[in-house]
């Protein structure tokens, strides 16, 4: 067992666990996008970053891939973390605005402006679909091609791979395409989400349709 401190609370976690898992055990919610407990961690979205303090220096690390270490001091919600996290989500919105998951996350973090050019890639390249196909279905028919902003999830030569078993898992696990935003036209890449500054007329009763926003629009993180 490894002893570490998260958000000022001392805790213990088995060696080999990640800081994200240790935090979740404690009930601390760290937002994630490319993480899924049933698949290998990937560390691509950088939304789950936490501040790791070492002496008088600290750095930001993705908690989903950070192994717990004895004596670690972790802060999941410091000013430095929230500032960086907000910018990352802002970048995500600028590259995939039509996603309810992202819009909710943004609203929750209090993002009220997207300062970057909107270039809708329709995908956040979290790799969940790729990992699902490979690790869960043991097929591996889809993967990443290209690099940089040309990187995308695809099949070889745009053909259906022979490995594909039509399980639909890639669509099911996608955090952004399954939940196209239904709040109508986006303004500068933002819908305001369920925590709109103006009342949302289409929803007479709030049942907390989004996981990132609790009932009556209460902030979860």
């Amino acid at each position, binding site marked *: 067992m490894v002893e570490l401190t998260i958000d000022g609370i001392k805790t213990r976690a088995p060696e080999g666990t990640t800081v994200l898992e240790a935090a979740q055990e404690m009930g601390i919610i760290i937002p994630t996008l490319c993480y899924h407990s049933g698949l290998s961690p990937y560390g691509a979205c950088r939304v789950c970053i936490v501040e790791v303090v070492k002496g008088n220096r600290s750095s930001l690390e993705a908690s989903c891939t950070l192994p717990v270490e004895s004596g670690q001091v972790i802060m999941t919600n410091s000013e430095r973390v929230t500032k960086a996290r907000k910018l990352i989500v802002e970048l995500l919105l600028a590259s995939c605005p039509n996603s309810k998951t992202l819009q909710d996350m943004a609203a929750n973090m209090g993002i009220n402006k997207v300062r970057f050019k909107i270039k809708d890639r329709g995908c956040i390249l979290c790799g969940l679909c790729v990992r699902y196909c490979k690790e869960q279905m043991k097929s591996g*028919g889809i*993967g990443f*091609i290209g690099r940089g902003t040309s990187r995308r999830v*695809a099949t*070889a*030569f745009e053909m259906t*791979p022979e490995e594909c078993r039509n399980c639909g898992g890639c669509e099911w696990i996608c955090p952004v395409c399954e939940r196209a935003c239904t709040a109508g036209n986006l303004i500068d890449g933002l819908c305001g989400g369920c925590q709109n500054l103006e009342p949302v007329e289409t929803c007479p009763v709030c049942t907390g349709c989004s996981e990132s926003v609790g009932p009556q629009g209460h902030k979860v993180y």
Partner: protein
Amino acid sequence: MESAINHNNQTKSDYQKVRAIVRKYGANRDSLVSILQDMQSEYRYLPEDALIMVAKELNLQLIQVYGVATFFKAFSLKPRGEHVVHVCLGTACHVRGALAVLDEVKRRLGIEAGETTEDMRFSLETVNCLGACALGPILVVDGEYHGQMSPGKVKKALRKYK
């Protein structure tokens, strides 16, 4: 070397060369990049059938091979032209005005970087430093260096190959 223009006429038997290349490096995953490089030299691009064959020989999913083929700049999935024009965009050349040279080459050939002319005569690529910085800006056509380029000298340099 097979002519790129005959791509559609190539039969599977031409890919004996692929088998030979695989044998040369060994049918293991870690030989993949070397195998693809030899194939790129041989065919001037990576034909679809050849990639499928490599995947089978190395026992890899096709998307793994395709992913590598599309990640690295050395490989192209479309046939390259007869003459490949490289414009160096290294920092030293940039500072000496390489972009203006590139613009002029683009204008003269009518293509963007990474493309090939309709008649398959020329392909244009940018390179990030050839290590001949004293001669910057530089144009390399088929391995021949043209140094101290300026937009005004492009016409003459390309005329040789037209």
